[in-house]
């Protein structure tokens, strides 16, 4: 700027001015060259949060008649650290449609040689079907993450953990249990695992063996659809929780499983007067029968077809399917990670039209003021116009 000489002149007359000008001259001689900063930030951030994980399937093994564990290694040999309980979001292209699903990591967080995810068959599951039937060792997968807030937080969680897991919701707990037990951490874990049958229970043998070996791990399998000797029969209700957890108010509770089970457990904990701050819940996608969710517009079946306008493109969407799914199906690329309403990456602006917002969409105040939605949790209930 043209005022430069005048600036120096003025400062020279101010108290401590000449000293400051001298200091500036010195710094110019000794400072760091800007070119040394090239890629420093990028590389450091990539150590923790690479934009894409390039993974290779190294092993696949059945863990129940309907589920497999898939071991993944990194293409370049590096996997970022994670906290036991976190997930990765796995991308795949099936029949020309690029989509993704978040899977909790089930491997121990104490090692980073590989990640393990566990995939269970879901009725009509688009991605799980593909992963279970078509994936083989040597295949490559892209993912993002690790991410998620369903993990132990030493600052405010109790050292006594109670895990309430249902069905394939066991997977983050497997990671947490392995992580704690393998490293000898000073924590106590009680796992109540609800499964339809013994056969359907995943990791049952490994968990049983852990319980035998480690006095700080207590494991109970509860079967809803069959009665077996030495196993409990029924649901994860208040009486059962109380029976297995001696000091119920001293614990932090972690819930992961199908929506129905989560709601059931939430009520049980409420009955036991467990404060909300002691209850952690994993978001577990969104129910497939969204039309049964409270607040769903009366008279709509989930089969109605609406038009979505986004940019130049017009696509068709079914009311019973999320906006995100409709966009992906038509080839629109959407930034996405948790697919459960939490991470906000799939946020889009709703210019006109109406959506049904499913439970668990963590919108910001500004989103509501300015009409933004999380496309993974929004269902079209009229024609829509969207904007990225």
């Amino acid at each position, binding site marked *: 700027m043209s005022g430069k000489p005048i600036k120096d002149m003025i400062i020279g007359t101010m108290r401590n001015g000449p000293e400051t000008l001298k200091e500036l001259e010195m710094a110019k001689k000794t*400072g760091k060259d*800007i070119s040394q900063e*090239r890629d420093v930030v990028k590389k450091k951030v990539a150590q*923790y949060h690479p934009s894409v994980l390039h993974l290779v399937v190294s092993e696949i093994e059945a863990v129940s008649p309907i589920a497999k564990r898939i071991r993944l290694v990194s293409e370049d040999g590096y996997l970022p650290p994670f906290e036991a309980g976190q997930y990765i979001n796995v991308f795949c292209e099936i029949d020309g449609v690029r989509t993704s699903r978040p899977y909790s990591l089930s491997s121990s967080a104490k090692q980073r040689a590989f990640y393990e995810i566990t995939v269970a068959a879901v009725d009509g599951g688009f991605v799980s079907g593909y992963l279970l039937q078509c994936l083989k060792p040597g295949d490559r997968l892209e993912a993002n993450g690790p991410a998620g807030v369903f993990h132990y*937080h030493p600052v405010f969680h109790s050292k006594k953990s109670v895990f309430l897991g249902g069905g394939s919701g066991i997977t983050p707990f497997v990671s947490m249990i392995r992580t704690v037990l393998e490293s000898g951490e000073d924590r106590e874990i009680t796992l109540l695992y609800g499964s339809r049958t013994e056969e359907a229970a995943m990791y049952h043998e490994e968990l049983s063996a852990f319980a035998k070996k480690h006095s700080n791990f207590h494991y109970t399998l509860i079967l809803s659809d069959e009665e077996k000797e030495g196993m409990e029969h029924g649901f994860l209700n208040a009486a059962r929780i109380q029976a297995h957890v001696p000091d119920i108010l001293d614990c932090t509770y972690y819930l992961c499983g199908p929506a129905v089970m989560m709601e059931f457990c939430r009520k049980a904990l409420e009955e036991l007067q467990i404060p909300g*701050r002691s209850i952690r819940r994993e978001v577990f996608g969104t129910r497939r029968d969204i039309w049964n969710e409270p607040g769903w517009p009366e008279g709509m079946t989930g089969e109605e077809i609406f038009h979505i306008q986004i940019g130049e493109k017009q696509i068709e969407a079914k009311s019973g399917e999320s906006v995100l799914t409709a966009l992906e199906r038509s080839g629109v690329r959407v930034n996405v990670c948790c697919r459960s309403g939490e991470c906000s990456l799939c946020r889009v602006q709703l210019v006109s039209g109406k959506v049904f917002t499913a439970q668990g969409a963590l919108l910001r105040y500004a989103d509501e*003021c300015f009409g933004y939605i999380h496309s993974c949790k929004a269902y079209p209930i009229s024609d829509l116009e969207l904007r990225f």
Partner: protein
Amino acid sequence: MAHYDVIVIGAGNGGLASAATLAVNHKKVAVFEKHNIPGGCGTSFRRGRFEFEVALHQLNGMNTKERPGPTRQLFRKWGVEDAIEWIPIETLYKINLPGGRGVALPADKKKACQLLCKEFPAEAEAIRRYFQMVWKFNEEIADFLAKSAASPANPSELKKFITKTGFPKIYKVLARYGVRSTQDVLDEFFKSRELQLCLSAYWCFMGMPPERFPFSILARCMYLYTVDKPYYVRGGSQVMSQALMDTIRRHGSEVFLNCGIRRILLKNGRAVGVEDENGNAHYAHKIISNVSPTITYAGLLKDEEVPEACRQYFKSYTTGISALTCFIGLDCPPEDIGFTDSFNLIYDSLDANQDFKNAYFTNTKADPIVATCYTIDDPCVSPPGTSIITAGTLKYGEAWEKLSPEEYHRTKYEAADQIIRRLETRFPGLREHIEEMEVATPLTHMRYLGHPGGAIYGYEQDLKSSVFFFPQDEFIPGLTFSSGWVNTCGFGPNYAYGDKIAQSILKEGR
């Protein structure tokens, strides 16, 4: 191939402000933002029942609708003043001294002065003199700026006038205190360390300890926050960011989210466009970088494209401080644990300069703690019966960058645990009421902001690098900057500077 009047790289406060002013003045602008949401630092995130503000503590330059301050005037000009609920705050800050003594300073010159005289009667005379000096200092600045503005085309007129009379004679207070550190000036006035701490608080807004914090910035903060009152915003800073983005789009300009810029395109040494992360080129007459100069030159341009003079120039600027912040959602109202004021500075010793040195380490055993309870500013900020507190310390990124990935999570939780432990001695019961908590480290800031060292205030703002010496020199024609890296950081100053950059582009175009 798209062509714009101006391309803005980054939708942070500075970028949005420049783009908004240009768009309102009928320029065709394109803003490119790598994130899915606008705002840069000016944003928020959700955990459970809570929404956590990331950056905004107190907005300055607002004042009332009838007597609008500079920030309010800008939002009025952008047409979104009434789209936002502005919440005035009556207290500047509360200083929590070692031993439990607390002094909450009202946002009113007379009341603040009276309170301090009552708290520190032995130095009452000095307190009154100090306040007078701070106000005089600001009046002289206003006068000098007005004179400079009146002769923009003819700086030599001003120069002649100043040479003839002598700057110190015309601007007595400015010449005496304008290039000194806060500690230096406070030592001249006061004996009591406690009293000094009650007056130096704003050092934490710029990330420099009192012994390196330019007094001129302190004097500006004290004056502006008192005159215009600090404000908060319903819904937090994301509301302002979103409102600005809406303004830009409403005026026919573009904001592209999820679209980072890979490099700046030069032609004959002039910046003519950008290439986005998808490989598409966009062209414009002028490029404004809202990204740090460091990353702009070292990340968006090739080494051989950066002039030697530029590399030389930036040697005197060092990457500034970052922060370790605990975002806390409590299942009780603030009064249950004894929180009475929104913005708190907590000292466990009287030597802030010494305590600040702990910023170079990962542990938080000695650092002054900044704790803001947003529920006090706006009871609707979280569900009834709950409250939100963000508590943290300033930390340099280097120690965190050196950690191995294995050490990271443990180190992060230990640092956060230490902060909670220290807060618990003053706010008993805090820990057991925590319902949600997230911890951000310098690496978190690095991830979301892309700043070297995870810096939250730009370059270090000491005497030789701020106020008179902000890195505003330009080296590549067609490329200019608008961010807290090249000017006083903070919301108000950034909006104002963004507007100023836009104004100068509008003038060029005429």
